[in-house]
């Protein structure tokens, strides 16, 4: 029964977009396969272990107008690498994906950050797909930006390939409207001696879900996967990540922080796999959450699965309120309780914001943090 409803919403649109698109046959086939997967499996439900804490039922009931810019869509065989079979969202995404392909040529250092900005209009469903290939020895920074107006659905994906000795910095900022739905997937593949450094900021959306899947495929890669979610009202934000050490001598660092106010809810699920032959792995994972209200809630689950003895791994998670001693220290210097609490919260978030090297983003985030705190810290 529910399948029929979904079909009526998306099937006609899918057929139309397929007919209109001037795409190679393999891609049309791929899209059909993806849509068939969606039709068969539907949207994930809370019965699905990976979606236990995030109820997407609301999205499945809503009708959006497909925002499609297929005419400008690019294609790349790398699309075949995208794992659309993760769930109904990834399948639906690939069926409609608007593809942009960016290649940073070999041994090239790009000074200016490459910016990908997406703004969802009210009532639309959007499926942006960006493929970034950082060729051997290249160096670049990418900025991925999501905004929206009113109630909309963004179901995006990014595929990132960091090749031998390439160096990629990635900022992802989701600041959609408080009524919108945001589902995002980031896949990262790292090669020999490559370096990937990401900061994922979640500020907006009524319901957001970001899946990060990072894989070391050749020894000697290093990655930072950091993030900050800043939630208030009845926002719900879920981050699921897998960091997969399949080969020796790779290093991963993951530091996610959450600040939750009002009735907001956060989910962090981070899996780090250290496979049998991944000796010399160094994997660190941390998720710290600050609850500013008694009604805010976080479900955090950092997980390490290690199948090799020669590794250095650590993980941890905390959920708590501001430390009494820290608060007293600030009060004892004459800061009012409100100011002291705001300053400590700001400081908590700043650990993530401070690592951002682009002043404009840093400033935007500083402002967003202060704005959320409703605080004038005079900073």
């Amino acid at each position, binding site marked *: 029964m529910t399948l029929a409803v979904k079909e009526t919403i998306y099937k006609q649109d899918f057929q139309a977009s397929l007919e209109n698109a001037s795409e190679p046959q393999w891609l049309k086939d791929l899209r059909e396969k993806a849509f068939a997967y969606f039709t068969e499996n539907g949207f994930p439900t809370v019965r699905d272990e990976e979606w236990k804490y995030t109820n997407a039922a609301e999205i499945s009931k809503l009708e959006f107008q497909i925002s499609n810019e297929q005419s400008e869509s690019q294609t790349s065989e790398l699309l075949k690498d995208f794992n659309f079979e993760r769930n109904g969202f990834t399948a639906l995404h690939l069926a409609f994906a608007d593809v942009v392909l960016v290649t940073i040529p070999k041994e090239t250092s790009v000074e200016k950050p490459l910016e990908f900005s997406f703004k969802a209009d009210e009532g639309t469903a959007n499926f942006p797909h960006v493929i970034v290939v950082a060729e051997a020895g290249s160096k670049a920074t990418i900025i991925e930006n999501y905004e929206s107006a009113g109630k909309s659905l963004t179901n995006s994906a990014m595929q990132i390939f960091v090749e031998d000795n390439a160096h990629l910095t990635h900022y992802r900022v989701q600041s959609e409207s408080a009524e919108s739905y945001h589902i995002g997937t980031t896949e990262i593949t790292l090669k020999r001696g490559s370096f990937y450094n990401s900061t994922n900021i979640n500020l907006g959306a009524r319901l957001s879900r970001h899946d990060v899947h990072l894989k070391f495929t050749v020894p000697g890669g290093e990655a930072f996967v950091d993030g900050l979610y800043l939630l208030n009202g009845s926002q719900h934000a879920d981050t699921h990540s897998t960091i997969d050490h399949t080969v020796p001598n790779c290093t991963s660092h993951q530091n996610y922080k959450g600040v939750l106010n009002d009735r907001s809810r956060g989910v962090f699920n981070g899996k780090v796999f250290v496979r049998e032959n991944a000796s010399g792995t160094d994997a660190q994972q941390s998720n710290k959450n600050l609850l500013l209200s008694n009604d805010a809630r976080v479900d955090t689950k950092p997980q390490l699965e290690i199948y090799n003895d020669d590794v250095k791994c650590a993980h941890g998670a905390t959920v708590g309120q501001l430390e009494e001693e820290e608060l007293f220290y*600030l009060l004892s210097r004459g800061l009012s309780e409100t*100011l002291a609490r705001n*300053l400590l919260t*700001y*400081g908590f978030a700043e650990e993530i914001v*401070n690592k951002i090297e682009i002043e404009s983003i840093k400033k935007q985030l500083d402002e967003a943090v202060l704005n959320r705190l409703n605080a004038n810290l005079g900073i």
Partner: protein
Amino acid sequence: MLLEIKDLHAGIEGKEILKGLNLQIKKGEVHAIMGPNGSGKSTLSKVLAGHPSYEVISGEVLYEGKNLLELEPDERAREGIFLAFQYPVEVPGVSNSQFLRLAYNEKMKHHGTEELDPLEFNDYLKEKAKIVEMSSEFFKRSVNEGFSGGEKKRNEILQMAVLAPTLAILDETDSGLDIDALRIVAEGVNKLRSADNAIILVTHYQRLLNYIEPDFVHVLAGGRIVKEGGKELAIELEEKGYDWVKAATK
């Protein structure tokens, strides 16, 4: 009288630690409060600063003639009370200069004096930092984060210099300091000492008092002041140990 403590009984988690403490302090004076571990020195510091975990059971504390115990910790600070912490707290993500400017301006606001903008404050801060020989490199760093023990204590005195308290309570400021850091901290305190303020030095050892000469020494044992005198009392204590006082009071 700047501070008047009358028959103060106070404690933590239902345990009475201060058992009838009396103390009077005038502006321009430096008082050393000495005593063995567990005598109530830190409790006294925390109670004066208004730490929420400590409770006053009975007694009175008047500050500039007003009931201090009615004031919240931040109000006490804006009224001129400063506690230099034995274990200064790290505040990640907040720079020393941001923090100090906020604290300074809160106090100025309270007293209806002009607040300083970041540039003006930076000049003010630079001037004050000379007192504890701190370079401006410390301004940008997060408050106390990654500071050595000595740097943390110097940072406390820098805060004292910036906030210019009327009553400063230095809780074991000498603990964990090597001789050079001790000298810098002590010289800093001496520079801040004036006829308009008073300082309470809470310490276990006489060592600090070689550098900062107190006008009065009070020995605390079992939650009460058991002996009082001038600076020579500290030297006597150093020679004879606390057992001497404890024995004398039994």
